[in-house]
């Protein structure tokens, strides 16, 4: 789960990482109230989960109440790369002496944690890595041993952070590592991490991705969930416990297993179609899950045909067949469904569907045959 900047800053604050005083605002009046509270000048920042906010006009400096009104009014409702701004973060503006970069993520190749620290912050780290890789100090951290402040001190020296910033930065990095590990982040990134003219180090931005697998030990994540999805289809799918990603095509996809679902997208594409979504109903899906999956896809007006691609392992194909029939009895599915059913109890599943087959409920023997059929229906 990706967090908004304001959520990331709230999360950082839990781990003792200094951030600028500020608060969220959903209206111009709220933005003014926050600005009056934290003191001018303030920065008004669009809260969207996409990069390049500044360039799109989503980050503005305001020196007084009129400027807050002007900028908040302009930014609320702004469309930044397809993301409409519904919320602002208003914080006390910081004077900046230096901008740094810091992050922790998993190094999948070496199976250790990877810290990245650079004295050249404020720009995209990918650009720094490309143009001046020596400006990034990489630190491999054994997950068993963790990061201690001694190591962090050597690290800030290696990265050639300014003298005045080093001790504070070392302590902040240890806290950020705590946030990353104990806080179960896939990514914890600060860009920029700043040094102020009066020699204070703090986080001016926050980019946090949480590991959903750890949600069982983080009840505090619940507050982040309300705003998790911008796509209404994804929101509905989440409520029904489905693993769904919305796309832009015309073929609705339901498959069991992430690999098979990805493969189904690929095959549909290869035979000239476009997928409307990725939907993995998972292992052991029963009739009810299948029915929910069809209902979610049915809410997407772009879908012209649905491809149900099942290879039964734990999932039993007879259960899937019953689910399809249950869905058809529960909701009116407005588009044709093409099914490919193989694996555990496939014969039983096909037998269950046989008496119900017609022009809008079709089975095909293989994945490729089914893909061709569903694409011809979707493109008709």
């Amino acid at each position, binding site marked *: 789960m990706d967090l908004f900047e304001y959520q990331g800053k709230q999360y950082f604050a839990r781990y003792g990482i200094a951030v600028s005083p500020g608060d969220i605002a959903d209206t111009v009046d709220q933005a003014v109230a926050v600005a009056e509270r934290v003191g001018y000048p303030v920065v008004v920042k669009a809260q969207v989960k996409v990069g390049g906010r500044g360039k799109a006009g989503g980050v503005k400096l305001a020196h007084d109440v009129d400027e807050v009104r002007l900028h908040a009014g302009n930014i609320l409702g702004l469309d930044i790369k397809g993301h409409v701004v519904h919320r602002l973060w208003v914080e006390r503006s910081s004077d900046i002496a230096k901008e740094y970069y810091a992050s922790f993520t998993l190094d999948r190749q070496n*199976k250790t944690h990877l810290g990245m620290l650079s004295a050249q912050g404020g720009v995209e780290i990918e650009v720094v890595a490309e143009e001046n890789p020596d400006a990034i100090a990489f630190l491999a951290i054994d997950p068993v041993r963790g990061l201690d402040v001694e190591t962090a001190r050597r690290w800030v020296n290696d990265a050639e952070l300014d003298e005045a910033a080093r001790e504070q930065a070392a302590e902040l990095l240890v806290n950020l590592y705590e946030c990353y590990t104990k806080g179960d982040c896939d990514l914890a990134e600060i860009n920029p991490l700043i040094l102020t003219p009066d020699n204070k180090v703090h986080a001016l931005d926050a980019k946090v991705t949480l590991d959903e697998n750890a949600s069982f030990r983080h009840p505090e994540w619940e507050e982040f969930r309300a705003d998790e999805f911008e796509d209404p289809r994804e929101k509905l799918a989440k409520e029904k416990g489905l693993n769904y990603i919305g796309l832009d095509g015309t073929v609705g996809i339901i498959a069991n297993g992430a690999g098979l679902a990805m493969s189904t997208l690929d095959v549909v594409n290869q035979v000239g179609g476009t997928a409307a979504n990725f939907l993995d109903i998972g292992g052991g899906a029963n009739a009810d899950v299948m029915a929910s999956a069809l209902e979610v896809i049915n809410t997407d007006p772009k879908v012209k045909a649905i491809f149900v691609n099942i290879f039964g392992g734990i999932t039993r194909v007879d259960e899937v067949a019953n689910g399809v029939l249950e869905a058809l009895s529960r909701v009116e599915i407005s588009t044709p469904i093409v099914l490919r059913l193989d694996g555990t109890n496939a014969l039983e599943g096909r037998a269950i569907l046989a008496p119900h087959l017609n022009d809008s409920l079709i089975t095909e023997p293989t994945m490729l045959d089914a893909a061709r059929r569903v694409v011809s229906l979707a493109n008709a």
Partner: protein
Amino acid sequence: MSIFVDENTKVIVQGLTGGQGRFHGLRNRDYGTKVVGGVTPGKGGSDVDGVPVFNTVKEAVAATGATASFVVVPPKFASAAILEAAEGGITFIVCITEGIPAQDEAITYNRLVEEFPGVRLLGPNCPGIISPGKCNIGITSGDIALAGGPVGIVSRSGTLTYQALYELSQQGIGQTTCVGIGGDPVPGTNFIDCLAAFQADPETLAVMMIGEIGGSEEERAAEWIKTNMTKPVVSYIAGVTAPAGRKMGHAGAIISGSKGTAQAKMDALAAAGVYVCLNPTEAGQKMGEIVKAL
């Protein structure tokens, strides 16, 4: 021959008394796997359909001589179960559990490497391993596999593992061993481990490799193949049409920036002399041609 497990492998099931453990553990036994015991703390002395249950892995190993363990416990207990297996003397651990936090996986993996260098972990979040006709540990349905070789399969995806087995079995092509390494960010066993074992196995004559978007394991495998592999390899990479920045179901399946795309993986594999196919069916047919020409 087969790799990692064979007809002599004795297996215990950690979590045998749970719903999933019972279903799959007994299904593995019915397939012919030597399932010699189960482990559930507090339930030692009981049995599951005749399979004795022990309180600890150590007791189970002492009583049965098991060398392999099938870990089928919920995510919050999985890391402890894996480490208990290693401490108890198990050398081959298969963990099918889906949903283990990445931080836990990273610690568990590194503890295994540092403290138990002789132990191999397969998974987590994998379908398991099957050496057809000999041993099946995990959730793969035994009846889609065909004994006798000559093809080895290694796959990052569960259902695509079944699809690969099915494509080959339908053509009458058997498998030596089929290994599902799983789609999590910190897998215990990777492509290269399996490719090396298949390369060393005299009965495996060709290998099918199923990858997916995310990470760089396929690229590293391609490098390894280029310099070490003399047996033909057919590959399929899922996720050509996957959008960047979205996890496609598996925690590991995500394109970050320009890294981890299916195309980059396919290019690397093709450059290493691998037969790169565009869908599972095509991969199965290509393998059919290769096996016929052997």
